[in-house]
């Protein structure tokens, strides 16, 4: 199935449509979620893994993944970590403020190919945002999948994204959720240690699992190494890549990654397509 293209929502993929902020929630100290209504309440279909270009008038435009429910196209949801000029301006948006939206762009997580198999979703830090639509999809269509495992790592308990939802998912008997943090004060009662340590004991069949991995590149490198060690083949590992973007439609070359354009061929890649470009420096 082809993921939706921007032509469904705008006259031209380079022309933003107007979006109005409905709600802003703080997830952590530096990360917030915006619910956005697109021009006149038009539905905004997207596939899990796709992203939009969000344009702040007079400031700039940035690629941000869609973090909402793909089965509810009535509102658009984005979770953003404040790192620089545009994302800092974005954190100041209030309900009623407007921004430009271009998208959805890019490839999707392989939720259809994963049917009938175990699925392991592995996210680090803000990387849970692009994977949350996958989790919504898996939960809604639970019977189509075998075991579902969600592994999530954050720097500290205070940096955990969607903490309430993680709690709700882990309360389900048909989903295994393992969360770990790199360091914690004493009051934290959960796992402490790097996310790669969760992989050897995660309950999935390495021969019949589809892994979807998202986080900073270094986190994905070590995660893939551990998945390989567990016997998961590169063809069944998918990663989401990030590079600076401008046009988001494969014209300007800003997002070039080896022979690929991340905006068009990615951001989600089957690992064997990018394996040679991934570098893990000897530790």
């Amino acid at each position, binding site marked *: 199935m082809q993921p939706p293209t921007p032509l469904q929502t705008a006259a031209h993929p380079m022309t933003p449509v107007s979006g109005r902020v409905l709600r802003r929630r703080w997830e952590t100290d530096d990360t917030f979620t915006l619910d956005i209504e697109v021009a006149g309440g038009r539905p905004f279909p997207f596939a899990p893994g796709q992203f939009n270009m969000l344009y702040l008038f007079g400031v700039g435009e940035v690629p941000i993944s869609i973090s909402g429910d793909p089965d509810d196209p009535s509102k658009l949801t984005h979770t953003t970590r404040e790192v620089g000029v545009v994302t800092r301006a974005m954190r100041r948006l209030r309900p009623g403020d407007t921004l430009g939206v271009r998208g959805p762009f890019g490839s999707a997580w392989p939720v259809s190919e994963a049917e009938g198999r175990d699925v392991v979703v592995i996210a*680090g*830090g*803000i990387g849970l945002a692009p994977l949350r639509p996958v989790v919504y999809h898996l939960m809604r269509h639970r019977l189509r999948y075998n075991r579902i495992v969600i592994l999530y*790592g*954050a*720097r500290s308990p205070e*940096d955990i994204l969607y903490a309430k939802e993680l709690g709700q998912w882990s309360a389900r008997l048909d989903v295994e959720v393992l969360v770990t943090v*790199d*360091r*914690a*004060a*004493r009051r*934290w*009662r*959960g*796992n*402490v*240690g*790097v*996310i*790669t*340590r969760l992989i050897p*004991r995660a309950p999935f069949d390495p021969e019949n699992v589809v892994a979807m991995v998202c*986080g*900073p590149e*270094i*986190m994905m490198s*070590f995660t893939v190494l551990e998945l390989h060690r567990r016997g998961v083949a590169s063809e069944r590992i998918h990663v989401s890549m990030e590079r600076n973007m401008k046009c988001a439609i494969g014209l300007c070359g800003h997002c070039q990654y080896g022979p690929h354009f991340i905006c068009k061929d990615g951001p989600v890649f089957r690992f064997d397509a990018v394996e040679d470009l991934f570098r893990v420096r000897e*530790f």
Partner: protein
Amino acid sequence: MKIHTIPEILGEVPFFRDLKPEYREFLAGCARNVHFKAGEFLLLAGKKATHFYLIREGHVALEMEAGNKVFSIQTIGEGQILGWSWLVPPYTWHYDARAVEPVSAISFDAKCVREKCEKDPVFGYELLKRFSRLIAERLMATRIQMADLYQ
């Protein structure tokens, strides 16, 4: 409920599973079941490493103090080994280890195990191979942690 003997338990955990049965018996001769309440310390930094543990139930947090605050830097849970400093002189612990919840474990007497290693170098080498893997894993985990994965 069937009560499992220590050699049976050792036969079930990945760390000891592929060790020859006679070596597991050998190890069991240095081992006993122990229990800790939540908040109790299994190891204390700077103290002599007289034991190591196989955790059977519950979680243990490795802790260190930095800037007057205590941080947990790793948790060790069911089926995992706690402690390798008993193998390397001067045999002292580097971290505190605190039971996060009630913990059941098998405790191994380090001196007894070291003596068996000296007496039977093949057994010693088998054990050393397992502990070097464990030390390498922990070293790797520490390095990844230092790389600050989520930056």
